[in-house]
């Protein structure tokens, strides 16, 4: 018994020694590891590295992304915000101003150099119906809304630079909130009415082969002679299709911006605002050309949209193909004057229809 006990005791002592030795070796190994600062530093900060920062800048929000703000759809850093700002401030604002002011300058120069496009032949006094009352009403409503939206839109874009110095804080605040209300509430109305007007005028604006020749001759804007044109000439068709493409894009993007209640994301609204601004500034510039040609630029055009009737000479010169179709329907001026009061009650013929 005692022998075996002594043996057991010796074995235990030996084992203890072994464990102690092993411990000594291991701890010195561990000490050696701690003494390598590079190795420690590599493990100390595992989370924030270049990859994570790339992830953040790309706006990634994986399944393990949390935001303590209620119903937040935001990423950590909205990097596209700066892109949006640069596109808006560096490109759209200056080039939009150049487009609009450049158009005004070009029109003024054209008017001074070439002047009003007069009728080649004297008026015959016989009138042709060009625009129905419905189209005229639509046109002037859409036109009024367009001008209001263009002015308020320009104020939102450039008012801070141009008008702010002229206003005190109180008047400026009231003017700007009024501007925003007009723009946001009349915008959808404009959109709906423009779509109706476009549908109504679609049949007149289908591109035809003779439109190409119209463009080749520059629309007859300068000099004598008129290229062939149907009810709508090449230029009018371009204006129509600009409104049917860029115009619809402006309307669609406007709806995206005007109705944040559908919860569209910031990025969607950034793109919508860029499309809206580019399209609207471009259309404003082209609209100035449309207004010039329709009013002082061409003799006999405006009366078509105010009274609905145009002179036979005007139709023959500007829309010869259309004139050939409808020349039988020409009505003498006197007959028209007699018809009007009868048709429209006691009031004398209102020129605006």
């Amino acid at each position: 018994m005692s022998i075996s006990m002594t043996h057991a005791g010796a074995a235990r002592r030996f084992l203890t020694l072994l464990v102690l030795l092993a411990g000594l070796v291991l701890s010195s190994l561990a000490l050696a590891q701690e003494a390598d600062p590079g190795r420690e530093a590599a493990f100390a900060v595992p989370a924030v590295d270049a990859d994570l920062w790339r992830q953040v800048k790309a706006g990634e929000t994986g399944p393990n992304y949390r935001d303590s703000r209620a119903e937040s759809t935001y990423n950590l850093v909205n990097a596209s915000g700066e892109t949006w700002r640069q596109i808006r401030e560096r490109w759209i604002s200056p080039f939009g101003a150049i487009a609009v002011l450049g158009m005004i300058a070009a029109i003024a120069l054209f008017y001074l150099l070439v002047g009003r496009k007069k009728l080649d032949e004297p008026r015959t006094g016989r009138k042709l119906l060009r625009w129905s009352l419905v189209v005229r009403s639509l046109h002037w409503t859409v036109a009024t809304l367009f001008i209001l939206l263009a002015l308020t839109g320009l104020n939102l874009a450039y008012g801070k630079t141009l008008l702010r110095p002229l206003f005190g804080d109180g008047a400026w605040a009231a003017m700007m909130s009024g501007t925003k209300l007009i723009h946001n509430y009349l915008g959808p109305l404009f959109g709906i009415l423009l779509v109706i007007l476009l549908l109504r005028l679609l049949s007149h604006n289908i591109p035809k082969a003779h439109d190409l020749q119209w463009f080749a001759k520059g629309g007859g804007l300068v000099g004598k002679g008129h290229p062939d044109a149907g009810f709508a000439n090449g230029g009018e068709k371009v204006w129509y299709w600009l409104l049917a493409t860029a115009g619809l894009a402006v309307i669609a993007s406007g709806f995206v911006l005007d109705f944040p209640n559908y919860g569209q994301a910031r990025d969607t609204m950034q793109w919508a605002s860029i499309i809206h601004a580019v399209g609207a500034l471009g259309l404003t510039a082209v609209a100035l050309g449309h207004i010039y040609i329709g009013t002082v630029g061409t003799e006999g055009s405006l009366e078509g949209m105010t009274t609905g009737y145009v002179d036979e000479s005007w139709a023959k010169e500007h829309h010869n193909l259309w004139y050939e179709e409808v020349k039988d329907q020409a009505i003498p001026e006197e007959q028209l004057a007699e018809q009007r009061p009868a048709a429209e009650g006691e009031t004398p013929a209102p020129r605006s229809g």
Partner: protein
Amino acid sequence: MATMKFMCDAERCIECNGCVTACKNANEVEWGVQRRRVVTLNDGEPSEVSISVACMHCDDAPCIAVCPTETLYQRDDGIVLHDKDLCIGCGYCLYACPFGAPQFPKQNAFGERGKMDKCTFCAGGPAETKEEEYQKYGANRIAEGKLPLCAEMCSTKALLAGDAQEVADIFRQRVVQRGHKDGGWSGNPRAEADSLAYDATQQG
């Protein structure tokens, strides 16, 4: 003149949301608006990291650049404030802000968003009286010589606020104590030379 800055030390943030609560309480921010938020990346993974975010009072603030009414402006000490009387609720500041700081109380049809609200660095905003200022913008602790409450109440001192130079000094000291393989500068071309020894007993 001091330049006021926030800095969140992501290695200390424990996403307790104390800053969010402190802000809400100090400024009586209206329902639905939360001026400060805590973002956690890789939640539940070994690389999990949290950071508290609010208006960072940028030097070249995008919100100021795009605002059509000059609602937003920067004080000489770098704090970006907003004038609620001028705000028309167009949302441009929200599109441009890198940190999702500007918020609107409403989100209704015809762009009816109400007046924008954002972190003021606890510096209030333009108003006739103190009461009006508190009601519109919340506390003006800066005028009382105090720092923003979110940073003051941060339990781990992860969120720092104050003069940029002092904030940078505190953070630099932390980096030195923690050690960092490239001296705390990511993409440092002199990383080998700048490597700070890591001292396990001094974890920041």
